[in-house]
């Protein structure tokens, strides 16, 4: 199952709607990095509104994605993290430091606009 990555202007938008098995997560990481290289996207929003569970593996890959995209000169915002997922992540001891977050996809785009303006 490949996660679709949409390009809108200079941004890539991803809304995760599928069950995240390990292979899907790793393919997504690779697809996103390739897409950034291909399109020179300046910003990425990954929307997690429909994701009801994030374990340490998924959290690690998401954190890696954020770091890798920033190494490539792009900025990634995670949006829509559910309260129950946020609580579970904190109890797991995962704080996702230095990661930009937003309430939803719209807010995510606004944050990118602000971070990238000028």
């Amino acid at each position, binding site marked *: 199952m490949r996660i679709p990555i949409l390009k809108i202007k200079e941004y890539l938008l991803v809304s995760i709607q599928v069950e995240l*098995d390990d292979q899907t997560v790793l393919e997504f990481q690779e697809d996103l990095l390739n897409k950034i290289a291909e399109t020179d996207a300046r910003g990425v929003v990954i929307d997690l509104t429909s994701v009801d569970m994030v374990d340490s593996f998924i*959290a*690690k890959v998401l954190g890696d994605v954020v770091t890798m995209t920033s190494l490539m000169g792009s900025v990634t915002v995670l949006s829509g993290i559910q*309260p129950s997922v946020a609580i*579970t992540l904190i109890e*797991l*001891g995962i704080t996702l430091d230095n990661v930009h977050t937003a309430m939803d996809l719209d807010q995510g785009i606004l944050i990118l606009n602000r971070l990238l303006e000028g």
Partner: protein
Amino acid sequence: MGETIRIVINNEIDIVVARQKGRELSKAVHFGIVDQSRITTAISELARNIYLYASHGEIRLSIKEENRKKGLEIIAEDKGPGIDDIRKALEDGYTTSNGLGAGLPGVKRLMDTFSIESVPGEGTKITALKWTK
């Protein structure tokens, strides 16, 4: 009640199956949405550890009842290499696989009770339980 759901863990997809079963069961017992997330995540961590370190094993899920309270018990059992130093394995950040080392200490915090039996060379059995409020 009393029935046990058994999920054999042999590959990555079995990890997803185990956590989906856990989600269904915790909904059926009327856990709140946050506890459902805690339980599902704990199952995912334990199932992935089995797959990663022991290759094969199983997750058993069952409903417990005590003083009119219900609980969900997770047993993760494998005949893999076992854990040499259990105290270390429970430290935040300790990992032998370049992970976050968040799994075991995390499961301990997410659940109400947690215990590990592990014998190097023989295998590992982890039992964790969450009670409804």
